């Protein structure tokens, strides 16, 4: 299709609208970044802004001097993300593959068993009691991993991918004398790298950004995931600001507003940094899921 001249004004409007939409999505990130590098005095007198009047890295310096807090959050979240993603991918694939096979007689029953969990849930209260009282998932690392290891949507996404692999692949492997596991390992898995990449990314992102499990099941500061650490820093700086009404001098130097923003940047840093690489697989995975709801 060649662009025709009469569409040009239309294309201009299109570009303008999309540019505005992109700006709308981007601007909050810019404000945070700029606020984190703004002199505290400027924030106090002029508020947060799109660009710093004077560049100043006191907030980062203040934060890095108390880096152990942030590092704890990083360690917890990093560990949870790695273990959780690998575990979840493995366990989901192990159930998704069998239920994708027509030759398996009870696959419908197993699919139904998974499906029920998508239709009905007992709600927050029984879930909480089961986790804390019966499974003792309270104030330990497993509490941040176990409850979200299995998710029906991921299972069905993987099942759909596996069942799109042609039957002949299984047949020819069988003729070559490969058993079930051998077929899975050396024929199916190599073909399934895309679905593992995409679903793995969904899972990893969910673990990295998770704070629900931390909020419900963790009280200890040393086990708080990164996102809750950010929340604590934001409200603790508030606390500092409130209590320093009484004192003057040294406390005045704490860049309270700047530190909140610097902590936010440090929290989202890895995601933003990896975003260009992640985005591709993410969109692919979305397309994969969208083909069959």
């Amino acid at each position, binding site marked *: *299709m060649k662009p025709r001249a009469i*569409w040009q004004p239309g294309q201009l409007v*299109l*570009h303008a*609208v*999309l540019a505005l*939409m*992109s*700006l*709308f*999505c981007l601007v*909050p990130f810019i*404000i*945070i970044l700029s606020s984190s590098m703004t002199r505290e005095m400027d924030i106090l007198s002029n*508020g*947060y*802004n*799109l660009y710093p009047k004077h560049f100043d890295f006191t907030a980062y310096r203040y934060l890095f001097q108390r880096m152990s807090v942030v590092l704890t959050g990083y360690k917890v979240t990093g560990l949870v993300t790695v273990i959780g993603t690998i575990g979840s991918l493995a366990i989901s694939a*192990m*159930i998704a*593959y*069998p*239920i994708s096979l027509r030759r*398996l007689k*009870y696959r419908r029953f197993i699919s139904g068993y998974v*499906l029920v*969990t998508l*239709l*009905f*849930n*007992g*709600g*927050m*209260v*029984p*879930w*909480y009691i*089961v986790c804390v*009282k*019966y499974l003792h998932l309270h104030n330990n690392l497993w509490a941040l991993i*176990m409850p979200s290891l*299995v998710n*029906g949507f991921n299972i069905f996404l993987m099942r759909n991918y596996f069942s799109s692999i042609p039957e002949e692949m299984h047949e020819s492997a069988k003729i070559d004398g490969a*058993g*079930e596991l051998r077929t899975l390992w050396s024929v199916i898995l190599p073909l399934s790298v895309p679905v593992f990449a995409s679903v793995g990314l969904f899972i990893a*992102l969910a673990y990295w*950004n998770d*704070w*629900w499990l931390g909020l419900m099941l963790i009280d200890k500061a040393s086990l708080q995931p990164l*996102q*809750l650490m950010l*929340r604590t820093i934001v409200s603790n700086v508030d606390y500092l600001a409130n209590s320093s009404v009484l004192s003057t001098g040294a406390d005045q130097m704490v860049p309270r507003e700047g530190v909140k*923003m610097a902590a*936010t940047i440090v929290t989202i840093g890895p995601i933003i940094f990896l975003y260009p690489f992640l*985005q591709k697989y993410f*969109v692919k995975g*979305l*397309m994969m899921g*969208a083909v069959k*709801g």
Partner: protein
Amino acid sequence: MLRELSRHKALYLMTLPAMFLLLLFNYFPMAGIIIAFKNFNLSNGIFASPWMHPIYENFRYFFTSDNWVSVTRNTILLNLLFIAVGTFVNVALAILFNEIRSAWFKRTAQSLTLLPYFISWIVVGVFAYNILNYEHGMLNEWFAKLGMDKIDWYSRPGAWPVLILIIFVWKSVGYNSIIYLASLTGIDHTLYESATIDGATKFQQIRYITVPLLRPTIVVLTLLAIGHIMNSDFGMFYSLVGDSAQLYPTVDVIDTFVFRSLKGSGDMGMSAAASFYQSVLAFVLVYFSNRVARKYESGSALF
């Protein structure tokens, strides 16, 4: 049966870890829903705790409070607002992406609109604070510069349905437009070419080709969203509204209410009753919305 199981022993064994975890984290809580009828205490656990006298006492407590009306209303109205406005914006953005000619511009715009989806609601909460707070919020600074009065957003419940709507769209529009875009990628381009030859304007092409092609996806996604109308995004409400009790009249939803009764006041009975009420209504809605979606387009629903 045994022969089938032993013939595919390895395959069946592989499903066990996931089945077991679903049993623990999904089926046990389903059974645990009976605590809504119990006088629960932690040391006895779910099954050994005594029944309530009368058995519906927890529900009486919940339904006689003013809360249940307002949280139910907020949950349903806010979700309807999200579905209506969200769908419109998502479809519009997908159409724009579909129409735009320059590939690099499309790619860049897509990356930028998807970016908010990648950050957590906690971070979004900080963003909102940054823009909305009374003293240094950017919006108020702009108001001040324009000679207008500053607005204390966090004490204005009336403004929050719209504010949350904007933030909701901001976070999800990139993601959802990709889903709609995916159903447009298969379009046969000769349709547009012949329409152009017949003298159809761009708007007519969108109106009579693109929108009808999107309609099944729109209907199905809307139906499924209606199925989840009783469940709010807890993270969004919790991190944006948090403890700002002044905002509860308009933006307190069932999920946040249950959470507060559970973790805050420790009112296990009331929160279990509210949680039960939500689960049952949600199940009915999810079930029927999927039935309707399947009727509309088989294969689109969950079952």
